[in-house]
């Protein structure tokens, strides 16, 4: 079995989760070796950019992985998303430049984003005609420098928005990391995949103990419970990834 782990801000928490689930995960020392693939106890762990996890799983290069809903929706991934993880949550928001009208009232809106597909679908769902400007990073800067009137981007604490006097205008989707499992591997090896799901699900339920092991979590992420139930963010926009 090959599992894709997102490098970066979620990596430690994802590894702690899998350790809690009883998997023998690579150690910190090993991770410092800059290797990208680790084989331990029948599992191959691969470390890839968070935006690439859905791509690896979708195409069968990894059997499962942890991916944010933002990447799942942007890649229109058909993989199963059986477990939502109680950490790393944030919001995908419409943010206005200082003084910009609401996006729905702006006939000349330009929207910068790292998520052009999600943004286009959001605009369609709101009946807004706006130009989408795809950017690779530091998206808020586009609004700060008036390159665009709005941006669609992830908001965690809202600090960047506050500092630059931008305006949070609308929620596009609640974003959470999820265990994703490729459809083909689930179809052909259901027992093994169901075991993985059950173990990760159980570990996610005891995540506060994982938090203690890690020691320092941001206060806003330490709440074990999800925002109560649905609406599933993918549903609020009609964003159900489609079948292959």
């Amino acid at each position: 079995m090959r599992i894709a782990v997102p490098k970066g801000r979620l990596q430690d928490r994802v590894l702690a989760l899998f350790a809690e689930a009883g998997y023998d995960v690579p150690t910190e020392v090993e991770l410092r070796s800059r290797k990208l693939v680790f084989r331990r106890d029948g599992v191959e762990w691969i470390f890839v950019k968070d935006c690439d996890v859905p791509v690896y799983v979708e195409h069968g290069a990894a059997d499962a992985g942890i991916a944010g809903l933002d990447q799942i929706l942007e890649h229109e991934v058909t993989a199963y998303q059986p477990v939502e993880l109680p950490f790393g949550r944030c919001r995908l928001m419409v943010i206005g430049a200082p003084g910009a009208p609401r996006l729905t009232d702006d006939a000349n809106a330009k929207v910068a984003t790292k998520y052009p597909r999600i943004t286009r679908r959001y605009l369609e769902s709101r009946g807004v005609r706006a130009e989408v400007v795809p950017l690779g990073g530091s998206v808020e800067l586009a609004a700060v420098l008036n390159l665009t009137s709005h941006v669609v981007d992830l908001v965690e604490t809202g600090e960047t928005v506050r500092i630059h006097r931008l305006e949070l205008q609308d929620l596009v989707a609640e974003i959470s990391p999820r265990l994703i499992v490729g459809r083909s591997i689930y179809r052909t090896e259901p027992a093994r995949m169901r075991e993985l799901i059950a173990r990760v699900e159980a570990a996610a339920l005891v995540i506060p103990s994982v938090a203690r092991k890690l020691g320092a979590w941001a206060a806003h992420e330490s709440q074990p419970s999800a925002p109560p139930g649905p609406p599933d963010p993918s549903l609020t926009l009609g964003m159900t990834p489609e079948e292959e």
Partner: protein
Amino acid sequence: MAGKTRYPTGVRPLLIEEAARRRRIERRFVSQLERSGFAEVVLPIIDYAEPYAPLVAAGAARQSYRFIDREGDLVAIRSDFTPMVARALAPAIDPRDLPLRVFYRGDVIRCEASRLGTNRELFQIGAEIIGDASPEADVAILKIAAELPAEFGVRPLVVYNDTAIVSRLVRAFGEPVRTALVTKRLAAIDGRGIDRDALALIEKLARGSATLADVGTWEPLADRAARLEAIAGALDPATFTLHLDDVDDANDYYTGIRFRLFDAESRTRIAQGGRYDDLYARFGTPAPAIGFTFTIDDLANDGNAAEAGGAALGDAMVREVVR
């Protein structure tokens, strides 16, 4: 010299050896289908988009290349054989000729080049039985589909389910049930308004622990459970796996059995199919139907190696890239 040396993403020519290999595979498929009593139909490469509009899920519609022809009609390049076969045959069917066995072959073109490694031009061979709604027809088509790759030394693994299970649950309790089962996240439903038996079944389906007995417990699905039991009883479990929680999210034309066929060694999908009992009625002649489609691609071997000395065939000689 022409400026562009490459081809558009997702298409490529087959030069002499590859072309010969594809034709050899094609001949063997066709020969086997003809031996099983299937007759060929040839379909146009373009057709009006309008007759198919109510049938095709939004995602599938986006897959097809469409344009306005000189008469001002919206036409589409063939992207899915199955509805085209129904549209072509429905007006010509004489009920006395049923059941009918037909096969088809040719290219489908899909706008999926953005997906990694996905071809836009796919050569497909498919077959269907029209006019037989019995579980025996389901078993027959499943077995024929499994025998075709076996001819090339590929050990088939067929995973099947019944789309009626989810469609009846969705009809009774709404689309969130499908979302919960597709994503395997029960949080997508709140459980209110769902009766106890159905809720227990939905939970087991989402968790992958449902059995046929569980399906039959919810009365509206008792007939489907009995039918699936009959089908499963006629199939070798080493090759055919009933996978009750394999749920499709596209609400397309399938009404019963839905299956995917994999190379058991490489776990590569090489074919797919299912039952679509309402499709012909939409084109004017009610007739149940069930069929499958192989997508022939990246032909690593055409079986000659097996004939020569039983050497391992390596990866699948056919590969289903989409659907």
